[in-house]
């Protein structure tokens, strides 16, 4: 058979690659600010292991409720005369620990569940999603009280309660994002390369929904910090004498009229870290997405 098409010319659209993705990637302001804040918190937590201005649990009743800058207490002292800055630094450990592990629990269980629902459809999807509805309907605080009753109150109970409460959220977000990705041609193409659904999910679907997951994880991380503060405030989180931002806030409540600064600093620490983590999440998403990088 002879062809009437003799096209040996170059593909006119076959232009050389003008730039590599890395050169084009921009580090946005979000990323810089977020990373700075988060690094500062992590640094404070790490430094607290080896050094704090004062012993954070040392009680000096005579020095109680001193103002900012009093005798080397940069942020003053609380009602037991403990150094506020030292308490905040050690409290950062607690906050990060709870945030990381709670989000970790939620991701490790939620992502496979959501992926399973999206990949298999049918009754399995229904069961997973209805189960997550049930979990979603169950108040996290109640779960925390339940766990505290069963295991005793403490950081780990709070962490598990928060993590479990976030599983349905992660499962839902994963399923929603994965459903769209599973419909795409490149996933059909990936199946045609000869691997099963699990492989395709891990290798092709997860990277494509990673930006959604990263943002979700940072939002949840920020929420976990708030939840930990709330639980500690209710006495279900870190137990005395373990310093915790939430409990500092709770204890400061009593002296709010006398020393408003006592409530201000833990509150500020919570607010700044929540903002910082959110900014970091947005920044990472923008940085990782090759298409967004191209536009900026």
């Amino acid at each position, binding site marked *: 058979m002879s062809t009437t098409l003799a096209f040996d010319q170059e593909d006119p*659209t076959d232009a050389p690659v003008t730039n590599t993705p890395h050169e084009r990637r921009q580090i946005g302001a979000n990323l810089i600010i977020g990373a700075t804040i988060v690094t500062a918190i992590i640094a404070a937590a790490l430094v607290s292991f080896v050094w704090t201005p004062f012993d954070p649990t040392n009680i000096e009743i005579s020095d109680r409720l001193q103002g900012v800058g009093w005798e080397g207490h940069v942020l003053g002292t609380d009602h037991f005369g403990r150094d506020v800055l030292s308490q905040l630094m050690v409290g950062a450990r607690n906050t990060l620990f709870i945030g990381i592990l709670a989000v970790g629990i939620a991701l490790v269980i939620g992502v496979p569940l959501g992926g399973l629902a999206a990949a298999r459809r049918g009754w399995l999807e229904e069961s997973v999603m209805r189960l997550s509805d049930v979990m979603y309907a169950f108040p996290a605080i109640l779960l925390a009280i339940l766990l505290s009753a069963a295991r005793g109150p403490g950081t780990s109970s709070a962490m598990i309660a928060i993590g479990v409460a976030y599983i349905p959220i992660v499962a839902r977000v994963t399923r929603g994002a994965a459903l769209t990705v599973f419909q795409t041609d490149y996933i059909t193409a990936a199946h*045609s390369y000869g691997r099963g659904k699990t492989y395709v999910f891990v290798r092709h679907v997860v990277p494509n929904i990673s930006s959604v997951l990263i943002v979700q994880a940072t939002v949840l991380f920020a929420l976990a910090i708030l939840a930990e503060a709330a639980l500690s405030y209710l006495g279900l989180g870190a137990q005395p004498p373990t310093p915790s931002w939430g409990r500092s806030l709770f204890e400061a409540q009593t002296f709010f009229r006398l020393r408003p600064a006592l409530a201000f600093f833990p509150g500020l620490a919570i607010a700044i870290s929540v903002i910082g983590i959110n900014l970091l999440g947005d920044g990472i998403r923008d940085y990782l997405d090759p298409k967004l990088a191209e536009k900026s």
Partner: protein
Amino acid sequence: MDTAEPVLQVTDLSVSVGSTPALSNVSFIIRPGARVGLIGESGSGKTLTALSIMGLLPDGLFASGSVVHDNRELLDLTEDQLCEIRGDRITMVFQEPMTALNPVMRIGDQVAEVLRIHRSLSRAEASDRALELLAQVRLRDPLARMKAYPHQLSGGQRQRVVIAIALACDPALIIADEPTTALDVTVQAQILVLLRDLVEDHNSSLLLITHDLAVVANVCEEVLVMYGGRIIESGPTTQVFDSPHHPYTSGLLAAVPEIEPGQERRERLDTIRGSVPGLGQFPSGCVFRNRCDRATDDCLDDPNLVAIDGSEQDGATRMVACFHPIHAQSTEASPR
């Protein structure tokens, strides 16, 4: 006469969407090294045929009949067994190069992935081989392209990458589902020539699915014409195109505008009257009878796809499913 075992033997392949048949009794053979065109309008079941062969039918659809490759009944294989064949022995080129590549993976990694799945190569070996393949599909500056993301490439370039992935394991059969439909006309021709040459170089067979008659004429030596989920005519491309027996094939060919230098432009294109019915709205008996000028009461029965005597050429048999076939120029064909 070619006696070699066929690369693919499809027998009575049927797929139903709910209770509506979408594919009915599709049978054909692809011989080693053959380039077969599967032609038909949208909704005629071309893509469904491809997906059935690959075992990639959407959830809820099931294929019946038989698809035999390498003495194995593909429809009976488990998912794991199918995975060994997919991407290795039978591969697929998709219609939309814009969406057939994973947007967040580098080109090189995507080509290397198939090799790593089926050839247990190390990362470096797979990467080297991927580079070779990208060079084979004549992507300019393949080394730089290895690191590029799909959105940095044009449609033609991406389709070259998709072809490189399909060729990676020297498959026995490549199924190309409208590989050039989404491309510019000039790029189309290049991709087709490339595909045709590479299929030959890799000793593969090709099932080319298209609605473009010119594509089939240029690339394929055999053609299968589909309408309403059935194959209504098949045979060597030249014979089918020179003297179509089925009124539908004839109508399709008449509907192609001819632009020849010096020839006066025709005022009107011939068309086939009516339009393709929706799924489940095809008439009983011959699916084409409501649009056919030759239809009679005979056509209330379902015509079988039968061979036309004395029409064999290079092992390909002329077949037609019609009670009143057209016998233009072909004197040897006799009524069944």
